């Protein structure tokens, strides 16, 4: 009886498949185990993680790890992925021309236009013919403000609206005798110019309506009697106010709202043929990706020093240098993936703390070298356990072998290995020859996109948002899921969760989402991030490895990697590939492991020539280890 273990060292986890071969030659997989990868993949620090994983597998069949006769190690993909984001637009309000923070409890309704006047002003200084918009600072009590408004109104003045510093709009509106629109929660009220033409609009409550005059450039032109040229200048103001339930626009001499592009530098994409293409980052993802595909296969990518993206590209090179010991400038970036995204940023010059969603470009990059120094890891394991350790096969090839134990599969087959830092694909043709590629853009990029678009500023929470569906805690005993289903609970939720949006984690725990977003919004952002990264990369990868350049030729596509454990991603990809008539689905390694353990299983299969698990003969290059261990006297 002999025990053979396949060991797959990945970026985040180290997996083991343990096989027992009986004396009569029967093979049986008897255990599978997992432990987190210790240290950077490809370094000696991986050894403790491997030993732990082997120990866990061994325990399941009552042996010691040292009893394992042979350990088969993968030649891990010599790939490191990283991500970064560059914001490429910003909104600047000059002269406090616009207030669009859309407070939750404005007062009154309608459109009011007049001159901006301090609430404490003296009536005597003002002409009753001039309509007035009152500015109410926090030093003025709402009851006093209401009294003053009534006083001016009784004396024949035309009060047309009010802008209030405190959250007092409804309180004021309930105490005045005129129906006027009132906007509140304007934290920097003192920045608003006095004596200028001002328009306030509040949409009717409980109607679902939004404002429609100040969000229309001609509406603003009407209230301020603008010329055609002046109207052209206020396009960004009107645009920024679309969808608001309330807004203020002030006509100031030089007032403006600008959406500026932030210079974000260029990406220099070097093709395999040696030519370099310069792409300005602020041109956006589509232009960048076009340049990438036009320069395929990419030989290197350089960013603008001082930019986020430039810094990230250097960081990726740096990590690889650390792992391999190679000099940094010999390390090349072999793929980048750009995705357009949005990130909430404070609006410069705002008077009410407004934020706007600015355009940003998210970039994932991948460095690749020839080979990772697995031999040192093998030596380390041997030293610990006294077992023979062999580097059995290249990760991608072993993944294909392991995936072929999924019921219903056959050759030709493509696998999509969706991890954290990279999306890898491999294709085995009818002659059992395997071709593989690595692309940047995977789980970590999805997490980053979720993080930025929801304004979480917390990668941990973003990871959780990615992995778990959200729900609204409606009452202490019921939740409403993203699709509207209402569930009653046996135990009350923690009071701190009342009314919150939460994530339904695996263990039944509910984790609150720290930002004010509904489950529907979260779902939308989450799915878009997954789609923009993984569906795009699935198509990109399959198109690159298909021999005939037609995805249709691949009858079977199997998804592996921990990102294929995701509750939405595999089905998004299957759906996108369905029009090609491809059987695409999550792997089910050995009919029971799901998408896990493909490489570890493949390593073992490689060693035993497939056994009864594969229904074809393994070609020599897939059943021969990559190197033999030197004898211990080496």
């Amino acid at each position, binding site marked *: 009886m002999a025990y053979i273990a396949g060991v797959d060292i990945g970026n985040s986890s180290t997996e083991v498949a343990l096989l027992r071969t009986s004396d009569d030659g029967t093979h049986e997989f008897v255990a599978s185990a997992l432990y987190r990868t210790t240290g950077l993949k490809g370094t000696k620090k991986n050894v403790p993680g491997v030993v732990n994983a082997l120990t866990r597998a061994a325990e399941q069949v009552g042996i010691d790890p040292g009893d394992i006769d042979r350990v088969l190690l993968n030649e891990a993909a010599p790939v490191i992925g990283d991500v970064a984001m560059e914001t490429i637009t910003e909104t600047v309000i000059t002269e406090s021309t616009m207030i669009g923070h859309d407070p939750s409890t404005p007062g009154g309704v309608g459109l009011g236009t007049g001159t901006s006047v301090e609430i404490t002003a003296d009536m005597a200084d003002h002409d009753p013919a001039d309509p007035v918009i009152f500015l109410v600072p926090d030093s003025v009590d709402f009851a006093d403000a209401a009294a003053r408004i009534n006083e001016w109104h009784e004396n024949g003045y035309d009060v047309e609206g009010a802008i209030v510093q405190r959250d007092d709009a409804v309180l004021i509106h309930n105490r005045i005798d005129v129906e006027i629109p009132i906007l509140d929660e304007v934290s920097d009220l003192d920045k608003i110019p006095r004596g200028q033409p001002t328009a306030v609009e509040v949409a009717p409550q409980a109607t679902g309506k939004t404002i429609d005059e100040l969000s229309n450039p001609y509406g603003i032109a009407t209230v301020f009697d603008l010329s055609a040229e002046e109207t052209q200048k206020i396009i960004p103001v009107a645009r920024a106010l679309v969808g608001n339930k309330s807004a203020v626009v002030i006509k100031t001499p030089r007032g403006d709202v600008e959406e500026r592009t932030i210079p974000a530098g260029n990406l220099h994409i070097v093709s395999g043929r040696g030519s370099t293409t310069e792409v300005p980052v602020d041109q956006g993802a589509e232009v960048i990706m076009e340049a990438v595909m036009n320069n395929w296969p990419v030989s290197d990518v350089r960013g603008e020093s001082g930019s986020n993206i430039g810094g990230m590209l250097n960081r990726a090179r740096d990590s690889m240098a650390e792992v391999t010991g190679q000099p940094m400038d010999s390390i090349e970036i072999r793929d980048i993936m750009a995705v357009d995204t949005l990130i909430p940023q404070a609006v410069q010059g705002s008077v009410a703390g407004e934020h706007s969603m600015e355009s940003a470009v998210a970039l994932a990059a991948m460095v690749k070298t020839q080979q990772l120094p697995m031999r040192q890891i093998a030596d380390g394991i041997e030293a610990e356990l006294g077992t023979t350790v062999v580097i059995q096969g290249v990760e991608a090839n072993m993944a294909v072998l392991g995936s072929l134990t999924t019921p219903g599969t056959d050759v030709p087959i493509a696998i999509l290995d969706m991890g954290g830092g990279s999306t890898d694909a491999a294709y085995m043709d009818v002659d059992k020859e395997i071709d593989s590629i690595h692309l940047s853009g995977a789980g970590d990029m999805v997490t980053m996109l979720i993080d930025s678009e929801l304004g979480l500023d917390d990668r941990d929470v973003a990871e959780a948002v990615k992995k778990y569906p959200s729900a609204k805690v409606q009452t202490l005993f019921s939740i409403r899921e993203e699709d509207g289903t*209402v569930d*009653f*609970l*046996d135990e009350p939720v923690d009071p701190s969760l009342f009314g919150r949006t939460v994530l339904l984690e695996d263990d039944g725990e509910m984790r609150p989402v720290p930002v004010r977003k509904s489950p529907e919004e979260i779902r939308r952002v989450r799915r878009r991030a997954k789609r923009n990264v993984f569906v795009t990369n699935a198509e990109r990868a399959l198109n690159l490895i298909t021999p005939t350049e037609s995805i249709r030729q691949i009858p079977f596509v199997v998804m592996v990697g921990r990102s294929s454990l995701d509750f939405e991603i595999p089905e998004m990809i299957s759906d996108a590939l369905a029009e090609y008539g491809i059987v695409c689905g999550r792997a089910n390694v050995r009919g029971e492991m799901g998408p896990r353990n493909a490489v570890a299983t493949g390593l073992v299969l490689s060693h035993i020539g497939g056994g009864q698990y594969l229904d074809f003969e393994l070609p020599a290059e897939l059943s021969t280890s990559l190197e033999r261990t030197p004898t211990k006297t080496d």
Partner: protein
Amino acid sequence: MSRGDAGSDGDDVPRIYVRSLGETASALVEYVEHGIEEEGVPWVVESGFDGDCVAIAHEAAVESPLKIGVCVSDTRLVVHHKQLAADAPVFDVTDPAAASARYLGSNAARLAKGTPLRPVE
């Protein structure tokens, strides 16, 4: 999912209150309970009530943390809601068949959940 055990005092779980006229619960009560149980909403049954079914259903609704009250007699089934006028229940069915009682229980639970009601045959 919550189950409808006969709730006890001090039981914190919000429930639909089902009240039956007379000492022994009408056979119809069981069908109502089936409808509520299938929808996964907690409830409690109390017997021995006396009086007008609509009024009793409304009192039950007023006391129910889920704001839903049901009153069952041998010949009448009323489903009420706390926020409705006492004389304007959601459902008031005379001589309901077993299947109708089942649907009415189902709808009482759906009212509690805020999901669309089934047409009562």
